[in-house]
């Protein structure tokens, strides 16, 4: 550890234990769900007690690590545990993927962002790809509890990249699967599956999409002609996650918003996707450089 690592001396205990002392963030489990996709479960009682569908956490893998946002895939309020699914793409997620049960994370802060708006809309398509397959699980569950007819729709390049079908089945009225190579399911991707649903005369009252930026963009394009409200969970680069830096600024309906505090959920038909895609790529070269070290 460097001299800059902050180590707080334990103060002599003159006072009783603090009611809000969260204790260390201990890794309870880490498993590979699919190639490159990891599930991380940690002890984080305060986050677990407060988190709502749509909210996220900011994580640092070690004392040298970046602060990266992760959407939350599940939680257990009783046990005080929180789970996130993430894709290993750069240095930070690579480090997270190395964690073992019993390791301690230096930072796991949340819940951040606004909770997703939940209501009884009728039929809701909840679409997830990549890490978003995990993130839509609590959304589907909450929408079902609200009395909606929930169609969960998951996509991937191939069958072996999908996970949690059983969980989604338990939380949805119907589960649709789309794979690029058609190893499972009829459609090639989520947006096409939604188009097919619309064409088949299915009445859809709302679409919620969580996944990579390009998938959410295509989903918004797919629902635009029929003007089905489509909520997307944006994932720009963030640092603090509390509205302090503005790194995560996105343009929605012509107005600059901070995804961390004004979002992360926005109307997909109003998002400036070109800007978002461009800003997400800002550090690609640095990421590669850092990963090589």
């Amino acid at each position, binding site marked *: 550890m460097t*001299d*800059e690592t*902050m180590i*707080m*001396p334990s*103060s*002599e205990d*003159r*006072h*009783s234990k*603090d*009611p*809000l*002392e*969260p204790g260390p963030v201990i890794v309870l489990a880490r498993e590979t769900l699919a190639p490159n996709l990891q599930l991380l479960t940690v002890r984080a009682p*305060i*986050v677990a007690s*407060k988190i709502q569908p749509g909210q996220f956490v900011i994580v*640092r893998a070690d004392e*040298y*690590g*970046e*602060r990266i946002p992760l959407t939350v895939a599940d939680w257990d309020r009783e046990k005080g545990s929180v789970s996130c699914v993430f894709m290993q793409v750069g*240095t*930070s997620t690579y*480090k997270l993927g190395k964690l073992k049960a019993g390791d301690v994370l*230096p*930072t*796991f*802060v*949340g*819940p*951040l962002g606004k909770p997703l708006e939940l209501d009884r809309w009728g039929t809701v398509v909840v679409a997830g790809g990549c890490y978003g397959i995990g993130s839509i699980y609590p959304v589907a569950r909450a929408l079902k509890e609200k009395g909606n007819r929930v169609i969960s729709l998951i996509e991937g390049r191939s069958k072996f990249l999908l996970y949690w079908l059983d969980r989604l089945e338990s939380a949805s009225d119907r589960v649709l699967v789309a794979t690029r190579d058609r190893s499972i399911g009829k459609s090639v991707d989520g947006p096409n599956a939604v188009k097919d649903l619309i064409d088949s005369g299915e009445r859809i009252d709302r679409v919620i999409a969580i996944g990579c930026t390009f998938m959410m963009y295509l989903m918004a394009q797919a629902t635009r002609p029929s003007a089905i409200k489509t909520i997307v969970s944006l994932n720009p680069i963030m*640092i*603090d*996650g*509390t*509205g*302090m*830096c*503005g*790194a995560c*600024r996105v*343009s929605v309906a012509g107005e*600059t918003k901070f995804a961390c*505090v004004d979002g992360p959920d926005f109307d997909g038909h109003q998002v400036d996707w*070109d*800007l978002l895609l*461009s*800003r997400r*790529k*800002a*550090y690609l070269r*640095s*990421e590669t*450089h*850092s990963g090589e*070290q």
Partner: protein
Amino acid sequence: MSKKQPKQIIPKKTPMPEQPPTERIRNYDEVPYGYTPEQAMAEAKRCLGCARPLCVDDCPVNINIPAFLKLVAEGDFRGAINIIKETNALPAVSGRVCPQEEQCEGKCVLSKRFESVAIGRLERFAADWEAAQGSLPIPELPPPTGKKVAVVGSGPAGVTVAADLVKKGHHVTIFEALHEPGGVLVYGIPEFRLPKAIVRREVEYVCRLGVKLVKDFVVGAAETVDELLEKYDAVFLGTGAGLPWFLNISGENLNGVYSANEYLTRANLMRAYRFPEYDTPIVRGKRVATIGGGNVAMDSARTALRLGAEESIIFYRRSHEEMPARAEEIHHAEQEGVRFELLTSPVAFHGDSNGWVKEIECLRNQLGEPDASGRRRPVPIEDSNFRIPVDVVVLAIGQSPNPLIPKTTPDLKTGKDGVVIVDDETMKTSKKGVFAGGDVATGGATVILAMGQGKKAAKAIDEYLKTGQW
């Protein structure tokens, strides 16, 4: 008794030894080395010992300046630091970042004809001397009162409140949203101006006094102020002014355009200057434009040089005279080769086909009548547009309090720009049991003012905890 000899006046301050500009722009180390004991004693002897010292009046925490200067002059450094610490909990910080020319040194009688006594440098000297003597003894503390206080934010206001209240026997917990305590002192002010070790030392000291520190905890998200009030007898909001302002001009969301908060947070808190040892990247521009004329702008422009910029240019809409930065910061920036484009306002940023900023378009201004701030207003000259190629832009045009807590605390009254409204003397907010101070209550001022307000708040909180009277 022999007649007192008239004091011989030395017109200039004892020069501060510092890293030469050409060297220091290649490292992140602190610029001034600090006075030696001999230099400090010589400088302190310049004080005339006024019968009615004006310097004290203009110090936001009213340090007994002539008394501590006298002890420094006599070589009694322990005595000097003890006097400073009677009213100032963080002298190593304020000695480095206070705008002394507008406060104590501005009122120094010497400054009318000569250079003032270097009060700030001597304050820093006394604090650094004490730190060099090893860890501080913990004073005798009163028995626990059983009262609990939640302090939100670990910046200068929060740390001051916590230190004062724990010394009164109260249980104090500081909640910090980020992973390192210190607030603006660690995310904003760069290492070369305020070494992080100093902030760490001060925070460690308050923790040794018994203050609990909970990091990575966002009040307003993990817990609302109302929820805190169920568990604590009083709450102090020292959450600073963390919401960055933007210009709302075209091209502002291009890659390479940063808020100063983001730029400095990457460089300082996340230590991007040590990338790839640390994982957080930062764009190392060849030509960096910083917009603004305050301390944050100087910090950004000087950080850019240290990150390897060949040219670092400050664009400021008024003239040199109106620049709000500390004189020393402007001086250091000039020495290091920062270029100043004065009387210039950006009107647009232009990007390349990949969404990266490549040019800044500006208008020239002339100065008009003074505005509400008393400074002459910049008036744009028509058709004076010009463009300069840049690859990084840093917006250092101001900030206001983060709205997260006001938004989740319906009965907390806020004013212009979301500033939490407080009583000037007690720092009480509109909500019973909740106090606020520092930038969240001023909208953005100085470290020393935040500490001064922290002192007032601690006194009023102690009173409130004892009497229950609001």
